[in-house]
């Protein structure tokens, strides 16, 4: 009997341990990313880690720039490591920071700058920028991209691979349907176009429920996501409900498709690539790739501003480069050199041409090289022009969770015939207020 009890106790301890290991242990797990292979080298080269997000052309460009940097001098060696998408990257940086093993430099999606800065994870770059102002030329960065670089008036990031969402158009499809390929410029026109396309057995657009696109449509309707002080949700105002009403109506009429779920973004890309839908919303980061797809599938591609409701409007997006705060002084100096290199005029032109992200510097936009490039490929220029209408993303600590709440609410409003957009967003706003009020 006694033996059995012991066995019972041990077994239950082991089992709860196994389970708890997954809950509590997961917090530890990601900390083990040590890849300082070069740290043991005896020479004086300073080795720093740089973590980045995304693969394909984006990774190519980042790796190329790092390699060029490493070859350009013999004091600093940057080890670049791929960490998945922005969410994965953020989670890993956070865990690595807690474990005392954070990379010296990392990409950081702009809306998360607030959380990271408030947590003391980021180095204040104000004095670095002041010291190096002649070389850095902070004024040269396009002002519309600096909104997310400052937290509480301190500089925390340098604009790196920045973007806005734009509209990609299959011009061949529009022409076949007898539509003017220079439109649609407004929501109403977009609806008209979609009706015509539907008659041809096509779709206007396949679009995932994405917080970034929603932010854009709210801006186009003249609204904001949050109140000025960031303590209250305002997306349940008329300007925030309008996009969801619009989407829901168009979905119900079969003019657009809004897949939900994890694959929704891929579905949207595939529908557009396979010429099922004529338009797609996507980051300007996809221009280079989309041009290849259009060429491969034999259709003509143009890009345009996202259609206007009251006015044009988009959030900016993408990532900036930040420095973590716990590195040694030596590493920080090296990190700063690296960050300046990565955001230089030359490199911002390179990454723009290779991927499609915005050129971040005014001098780059005005350079002969890009002027020529824009004449040849006007598809790249749209995002730059659209910056006039761009605004920063909210950076409140609770915003990542608010974004999820809003996404769920929109999905619910679109899937469930019984839930009106106003109801869904009111519910989401009540939840968000609790988070933001803290």
């Amino acid at each position: 009997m006694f033996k059995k009890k012991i066995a019972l106790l041990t077994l239950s301890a082991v089992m709860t341990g196994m389970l708890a290991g997954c809950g509590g242990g997961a917090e530890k797990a990601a900390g083990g990313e040590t890849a300082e292979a070069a740290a043991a080298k005896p020479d004086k080269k300073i080795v720093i880690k740089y973590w980045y997000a995304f693969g394909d052309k984006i990774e190519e460009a980042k790796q190329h720039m790092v390699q060029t940097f490493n070859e350009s001098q013999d004091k600093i060696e940057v080890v670049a490591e791929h960490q998945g998408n922005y969410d994965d990257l953020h989670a890993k940086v956070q865990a690595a920071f807690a474990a005392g093993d954070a990379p010296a430099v990392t990409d950081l999606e702009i809306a998360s700058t607030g959380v990271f800065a408030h947590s003391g994870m980021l180095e204040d770059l104000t004095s670095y920028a002041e010291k190096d102002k002649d070389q850095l030329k902070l004024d040269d960065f396009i002002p519309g991209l600096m909104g997310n670089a400052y937290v509480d008036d301190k500089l925390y990031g340098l604009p790196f691979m920045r973007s806005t969402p734009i509209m990609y158009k299959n011009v061949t499809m529009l022409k076949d349907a007898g539509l003017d390929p220079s439109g649609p410029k407004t929501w109403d026109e977009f609806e008209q176009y979609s009706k015509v396309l539907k008659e041809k057995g096509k779709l206007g657009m396949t679009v995932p429920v994405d917080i970034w696109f929603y932010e854009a449509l709210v801006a186009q309707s003249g609204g904001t996501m949050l109140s000025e002080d960031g303590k209250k949700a305002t997306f349940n105002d008329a300007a925030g409900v309008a996009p969801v009403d619009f989407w829901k109506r168009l979905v119900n009429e079969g003019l657009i498709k809004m897949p939900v779920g994890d694959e929704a973004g891929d579905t949207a890309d595939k529908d557009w690539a396979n010429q099922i839908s004529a338009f797609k919303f996507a980051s300007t980061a996809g221009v280079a790739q989309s041009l290849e797809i259009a060429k491969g599938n034999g259709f003509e591609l143009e890009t345009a501003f996202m259609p206007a409701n009251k006015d044009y409007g988009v959030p900016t997006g993408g990532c900036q480069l930040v420095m973590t705060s716990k590195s040694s002084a030596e590493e920080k100096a090296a990190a700063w050199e690296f960050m300046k290199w990565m955001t230089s005029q030359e490199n911002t032109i390179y990454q723009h041409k290779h991927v499609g992200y915005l050129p971040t510097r005014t001098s780059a936009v005005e350079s002969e090289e890009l002027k020529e490039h824009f004449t040849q490929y006007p598809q790249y220029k749209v995002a730059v022009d659209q910056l006039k209408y761009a605004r920063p993303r909210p950076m409140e600590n609770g915003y990542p969770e608010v974004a999820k709440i809003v996404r769920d609410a929109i999905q619910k409003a679109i899937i469930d015939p019984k839930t009106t957009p106003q109801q869904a967003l009111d519910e989401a706003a009540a939840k968000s207020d609790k988070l933001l009020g803290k």
Partner: protein
Amino acid sequence: MTVWERLRPYSMVAPAIIVFAMFFIYPIFYMMYLSLFDWNFVSPTKTFVGIQNFVDLLSEPDFRQVLSNTTLYTVLTVTLTTGLSLFMAIWLNRSGFFYGLVQGAIFSPHIISLVSISLLWSWLMDPEYGLLNWVIGLFGFGKLEWLSHPSTSLISLVIVAVWKGLGYNTLVFIAGLQSIPQDIYEAASLDRSRPWTTFTRLILPMLSPTIFFLVIINLIGSFQVFETIAIMTQGGPVNSTNTLVYYIYEAGFRFFKIGYASAAGVILLFIVGILTIVYFRLLSSRVHYR
């Protein structure tokens, strides 16, 4: 007895105990400690909030949905996996090339990484371009939404889990069946026992230790479900596939609420602790031991 002789057994188990303490005991207590704070894991200040995290959790409708999702997922996965694999085991418990082939085929998912499986099934279940909907279409049925609709997403994940677990469970059941002494069968057939009676009065009781083992293992596995959710649905759409462990991960690493996540972890620990004890109490009395 010398001192060494007295210490020797302890020194022998010390490595295991130390590892166990470091990676299981310490995290559990640290998690309990953290559950009383409002903290984001990196900021220098932890704010003590007492049981506020638990109050928040239990008053959060999303968390209640997470609990019911987890329960539903676990119940469905455990019953389906155990039931189906028992059926398969009885069918496959004979020799012959064909049976060996089937056994090998259904076992193969067990050795494939769950991440690959998740990606594979994401493609199979794609509502527009997936193979499953294409096959269904051949028979003239409409498209299923699979993972893309709250009403079918959880059951889709259950299907993947059952498919993955079937082979292993069947293998264990076959081993269990083969360990039943032949003479009992002979006695049963002498008594002209009908197949159904043989199954319920002979096979099931003799197999009960195996069933018990598999139920517990599957229960733990299902409660821990994470990879498929992280890769295939991220808890969506509209929270319909969010389960406890993923919820904990999301709170901790997506939203940087470590205290809140730890509180959810404590609740998980509590539920599983209770479940384990109940299971042992309840089932140990009914399990046939030889």
